[in-house]
């Protein structure tokens, strides 16, 4: 009987140690929620008064579940990016009517001023297309659904000299699920039942590089 007990204990210990990809382990690793921007990037500069609108299509979601969504923005030039507002619009898949508006934040605010010259923000200080500064925004409390489309809007403060010299990532390759456009207007103030900005979303997205679980 003692041997049987020992075998049972050993089995349980072995399983707890060696079981691959336990829930905790899976949650710990940051994983892609969609196919992000691929490889090296180009640059698109001068964003004062512009909104970068990026579409995250439900049809492109990778089947991994996460209670939070983390957006990564890419910068290629400038010393400071002054953002006036950031939001995420939800629409029905293929639809254009906004069904939910979720604030997106960095450092707890939706209007951050990002110090691109700080090594704590951009480890390689001389940012460029070869060394883009990839900024991780705060986790957004939203679980992306394959039944919806999502639009991330980042509006850069107008009449702002910092933003005149800001460069954002412009994809070289088209193999991404992220598409987007830009507009010289504040597109971040729309509300539920408004229509999303009537732009072309056929090109790969500016600024937004990755959408991940963490």
């Amino acid at each position, binding site marked *: *009987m003692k041997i*049987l*007990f020992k*075998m*049972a204990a050993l*089995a*349980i210990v072995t*399983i707890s140690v060696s*079981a*691959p*990809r336990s829930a905790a382990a899976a949650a710990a*690793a*940051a*994983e*892609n929620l969609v*196919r*992000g*921007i*691929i*490889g*090296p*990037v180009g640059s698109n500069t001068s964003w004062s008064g512009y909104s970068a609108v990026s579409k995250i299509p439900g049809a492109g979601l*990778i089947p*991994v579940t996460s209670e939070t969504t983390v957006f990564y923005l*890419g910068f290629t030039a400038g010393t400071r990016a002054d953002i006036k507002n950031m939001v995420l619009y939800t629409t029905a898949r293929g639809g254009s009517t906004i069904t939910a508006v979720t604030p997106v934040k960095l450092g707890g605010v939706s209007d951050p001023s990002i110090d691109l010259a700080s090594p704590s923000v951009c480890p390689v200080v001389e940012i460029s297309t*070869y*060394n*883009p500064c*990839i900024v991780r925004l705060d986790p957004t409390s939203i679980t992306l659904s394959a039944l919806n489309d999502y639009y991330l809007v980042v509006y850069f403060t107008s009449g702002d000299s910092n933003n005149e010299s800001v460069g954002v*990532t412009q994809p*070289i*390759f*088209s*193999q*991404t699920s992220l598409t987007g456009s830009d507009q010289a207007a504040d597109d971040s103030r729309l509300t539920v039942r408004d229509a999303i900005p009537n732009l072309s979303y056929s090109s790969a997205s500016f600024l937004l*590089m*990755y959408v*991940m*679980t963490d």
Partner: protein
Amino acid sequence: MNFDRRLVKLSLMLCAALLPPLSGAATVNLVRGVVGPVSSNTSWANYSMFNLIPGSAVFPTTSSTTVFYLGFTAGSKADIGNMVVYTIARGSLKISKITPVTYGGTSVPSINLGSASVCAVAPSASKPCIVRFDPTSLSLSPASDYYFVVFFKNDSNNGSIGAAQSSPGQSSLVGEYLGGTDYTRLRVGESIPIVPNGSADFLMYVMND
């Protein structure tokens, strides 16, 4: 006592039932590979082939090994001078790690495409010969990009080999090639000399096994 025994049995049965399937049991894609039919790109003597495996496209599956599958569309023997994978911070070009890649235990294999044990039928664009390389001790991370580089020796065999070339825009794999230099000898801290901007050549699939 009988109750205790039943309890122990139940515990063991529960453990067995709850165990996930062995990770080695299923072969799965680590990124979206080459989709559908391929075309052919021939004459590779003295060329280095670059294929980018972007971290942003890595699927959420964990594997301690990475297996590369190369597609050949022509030729009877491929003489490889060296093969490596360069690991790079996502979106950058500077090499942070180098991992050798082998076939049959060597990084300088001569692949006999004329052998039925390697290619069941003579390779062509309609029937590419897909060669599985040795598992590489590399666990792909979404936070890194990977460049798989193969240098083909400057010999007559390589003058007549053909690469399976993907249709642009479908796969997550992109590629480029440079002639005249063996770019598998770069070191940590150096940069990839070219930004891939074309279809993937040779590399068709990246899998866990």
